[in-house]
């Protein structure tokens, strides 16, 4: 098992965003994390990547307890994530954004990092990476998020809604990219609202609702689970 959370809980004042979550991510799988808006998916991502620490519970990565390990060290251990609302570094070119994570997460020299970043840009098919960021489309910004995460040389890659805002054709290309990453032995968590993407990509799905896991299993089974349908559509009157 690559990642395991134990009774993971995060509350913001009175609001419990993530409640006693026991999440398991197996080596080499693509895990889908779904749930209605406000279910706690992004909070869970933030907890795993170390953007903030949990109120209660533990996080284990490769059998090490990383609950209170700072975010930059987690990036160096191989936990990488993208941001749902893209957070590119605006003063850099697209290429330099990728150089940053190669430099600091991999600990490469400037020369090595430039070389690695160039390869990553080719891999995600980011054309003309020397462009300034205000000239990038949504699709390119999403690819840049993935590229910068790949700069961390991740063992676990958390993709927080990378499909949002993409058209059908772009989505297909992104799906191909994610599949190619799995072949590179990267374990992937996909947080997504687009169900067709989840059904095409994932081996297993975890459903969150109001901070708790309410179902898990293969997509086909979970999609027909009455609890899941209720969570998305509400109770029948």
């Amino acid at each position, binding site marked *: 098992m690559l990642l395991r959370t134990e009774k993971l809980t995060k509350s913001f004042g009175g609001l419990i965003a993530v409640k006693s979550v026991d999440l398991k991510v197996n080596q080499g799988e693509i895990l889908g994390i779904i749930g209605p808006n406000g279910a706690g998916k992004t909070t869970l991502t933030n907890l795993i990547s*170390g*953007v903030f620490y949990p109120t209660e519970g533990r996080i284990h990565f490769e059998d090490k307890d990383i609950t209170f390990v*700072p*975010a930059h060290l987690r*990036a*160096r251990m191989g936990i990488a994530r993208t941001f749902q609302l893209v957070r*590119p*570094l605006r003063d850099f070119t697209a290429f330099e954004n990728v150089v940053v994570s190669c430099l600091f997460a991999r600990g490469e020299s400037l020369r090595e990092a430039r070389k690695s970043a160039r390869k990553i840009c080719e891999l995600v098919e980011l054309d003309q990476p020397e462009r300034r960021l205000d000239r990038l489309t949504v699709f390119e910004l999403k690819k840049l998020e993935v590229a910068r995460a790949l700069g961390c040389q991740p063992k676990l890659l958390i993709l927080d809604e990378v499909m949002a805002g993409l058209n059908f054709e772009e989505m297909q290309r992104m799906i191909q990219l994610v599949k190619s990453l799995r072949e590179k032995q990267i374990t992937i968590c996909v947080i997504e609202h687009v169900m067709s993407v989840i059904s095409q990509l994932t081996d297993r799905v975890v459903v969150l609702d109001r901070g708790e896991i309410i179902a898990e299993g293969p997509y086909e089974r979970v999609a027909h689970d009455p609890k899941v349908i209720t969570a998305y559509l509400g109770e029948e009157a």
Partner: protein
Amino acid sequence: MKYFMIAIVCVLCFLLPFFVGAYLIHVLTSIMIFLSLALSWDMMLRTGQLSFGIAGFFGLGAYASIIAVDDFSIDPLWSILVAAGFAALIALALGWIVLRLREIYFAITTLALSSVFMIFARNLSDLTGGSAGEVLYESIFKGDSIKIYWLVLSVALTVILVSELFQRTRIRFAINAIRDDEIAAKCSGVNIFKYLLFVFVLTSAIQGAVGALYAQQYAFVEPESTFSANFLLLPMSMALVGGIYSTLGPIIGAVVLGLASEYLKLIMPYGHLIIYGLILVLTIMFLPRGIYGTVVNRIAAKR
């Protein structure tokens, strides 16, 4: 070719005292003091942290240098290193605490630190001479203004070199990332606190060394004038007018404003600060990225 030009300019700067008069040498020495402060302030700003504490570390260095010479019989030249080291140590201890603050909270706290330093200087009378200040007994190079010019020039060139190293190494990637987006930076493996502390300590050491040079030049420290807000406001204005986030910007700003203020002082001894303020206001209104930043943007836009 570029490096050759830079080398020639450096040599010319060193040979200048043989061609120009004492007055201009004095003006240039003062400009380079402020140039170093402006660059050190800008280096911290590149991490996104607006420090108002530079006059404080400048004053600490000035006092440390004079006390080192007067009370501990340290050679005046070495006292500059002592001052830099002392400022760095204080910055290390305080940075540990204040670098957890951000934006306006960091700015206000560093401003308060300056005042605290001044209160210490005024009240530790046995060591600092209290509010009367302290006179330097053995002045550096026996007050030879040309040798002082060479020394200040060497320090200024070192600061310029450090600033360029910031721009050309991984440090640039770290501090620009921190300025742009701390969450994205730390998720990309950047140790934010380590870099902030490093830059804060290094720039404070520069300010301390420059304070020592200033004190050695004038052979006198006194709380009000040594911790004067001028040593914060003038360097900030120079960096803003010249162009922040670059090495060349603060240099241009220091030369332009430094020469302008000298000239204005001559033609209107009482009103020159009004014109000086006007230049600052107009630059911020019409060239928000400063002289250098505007030029760079124009060139980038043409491409």
